[in-house]
């Protein structure tokens, strides 16, 4: 739909020969700049490798993450916000798919690492983040959700939009950093020492039941999102 509108706008703007040539030049300049940027990224990968033997890989993976986020317009904030703002849940469903796929892969990695038994699981060495849960999680996530909707992008989205050319996100990141520093002072107040680490496989006495619960919940959420999307936005 929007693509059609864009096409009409483009063809109507093609009245003069000049603007068409300009457009072609603009396209060429951008693509050449892009090619030059690839060279910059490769140099960066080499520089990273001077200090960190894994540096080059991390540079490449980070860049590809940015590329993938931009190309698919993937935005966690929109995934959480759009069901209420527009009624659309396609991105919400895609987000749930990332959780399901990544859960499966992290489970596979952790089982390979520690074995199927939970006796030797070491949270600090586990793939992923297994952290204390409590009041701080709820309050922090709530504030983060409000902030992400106001700023029009979450953590990954902010960096992605900085690259896309949104000047607003360059302001966001400055205050995100300042907020992180303020949070460094404020966070210990709500992070109680008694907050437990709850690892679902331990809670449910094994990987099998934990996986059943995890994937069932994700499936239910996916179906709910699908129904919500059909009702609110005609399946969008």
């Amino acid at each position, binding site marked *: 739909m929007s693509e059609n509108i864009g096409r009409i706008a483009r063809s109507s703007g093609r009245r003069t020969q000049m603007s068409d040539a300009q457009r072609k030049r603009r396209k060429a300049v*951008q693509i050449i700049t892009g090619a030059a940027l690839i060279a910059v990224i490769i140099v960066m990968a080499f520089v990273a490798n001077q200090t960190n033997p894994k540096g080059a890989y991390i540079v490449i993976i980070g860049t*590809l*993450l940015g590329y993938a986020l*931009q190309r698919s317009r993937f935005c966690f904030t929109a995934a*959480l916000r759009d069901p209420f703002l527009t009624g659309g849940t396609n991105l919400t469903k895609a987000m749930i798919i990332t959780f399901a796929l990544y859960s499966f892969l992290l489970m596979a990695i952790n089982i390979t690492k520690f074995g199927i038994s939970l006796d030797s699981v070491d949270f600090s060495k586990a793939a992923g983040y297994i952290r204390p849960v409590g009041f701080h999680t709820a309050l922090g*996530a709530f504030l983060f959700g409000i902030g*992400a909707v106001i*700023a029009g992008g979450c953590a990954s989205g902010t960096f992605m939009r900085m690259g896309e050319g949104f000047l607003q996100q360059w302001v966001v990141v400055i205050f995100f950093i300042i*907020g992180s520093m303020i949070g460094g002072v404020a966070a210990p107040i709500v992070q109680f020492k008694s907050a437990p680490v709850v690892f679902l496989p331990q809670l449910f006495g094994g990987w099998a039941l934990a996986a059943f619960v995890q994937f069932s919940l994700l499936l239910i959420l996916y179906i709910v999102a699908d129904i919500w999307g059909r009702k609110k936005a005609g399946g969008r």
Partner: protein
Amino acid sequence: MSEEKINANKQKVDYWKILFKNEWSYVTGAVVIVVLATALVIVTGKSWGVTGILHLWGGKFLELIGVNADTWSIYNGALGKFNFWKSIPSITNVGIVLGALLSALLAASFKIKKIKSYKQVIAAILGGILMGVGARMAMGCNIGALFSGLSSFSLHGWVFFLFIFIGAMVESSMLKKWFM
């Protein structure tokens, strides 16, 4: 062969459009993101995070302008140990900026989007600070706590999911009232 058919055969395939211009579906994006995140785990042993190091960037900036922040309780010597090339989230964050820029450039769709009103500045300040404070409290952001945390079978990821959702819901309804 009819003339129409010959013309159709002659039509050039625009590989640039296929490779760089066409947008990916959300599901394609989802799969690629998970593959890359898994690659990061395999290479580094650590899952993707974004916000855990942002306060260190702030502290490094303070050091640059002559403020010795390393003795502050929130750093406690962490700034001295900080090395950009050894800080995985620091590299991936800059990588995300460069990757998104690259994607926009190769698609010839890069455009600087200026700040249009003071409202956007206030939104940026308020939203940025709330996200920063929230991520520190919850020990992670939408990536570290939600994407990586929930997928690690850690309850804190699920609680984060529930409450970021409530936060987004509350704020969306407010946005609707104010701007629509």
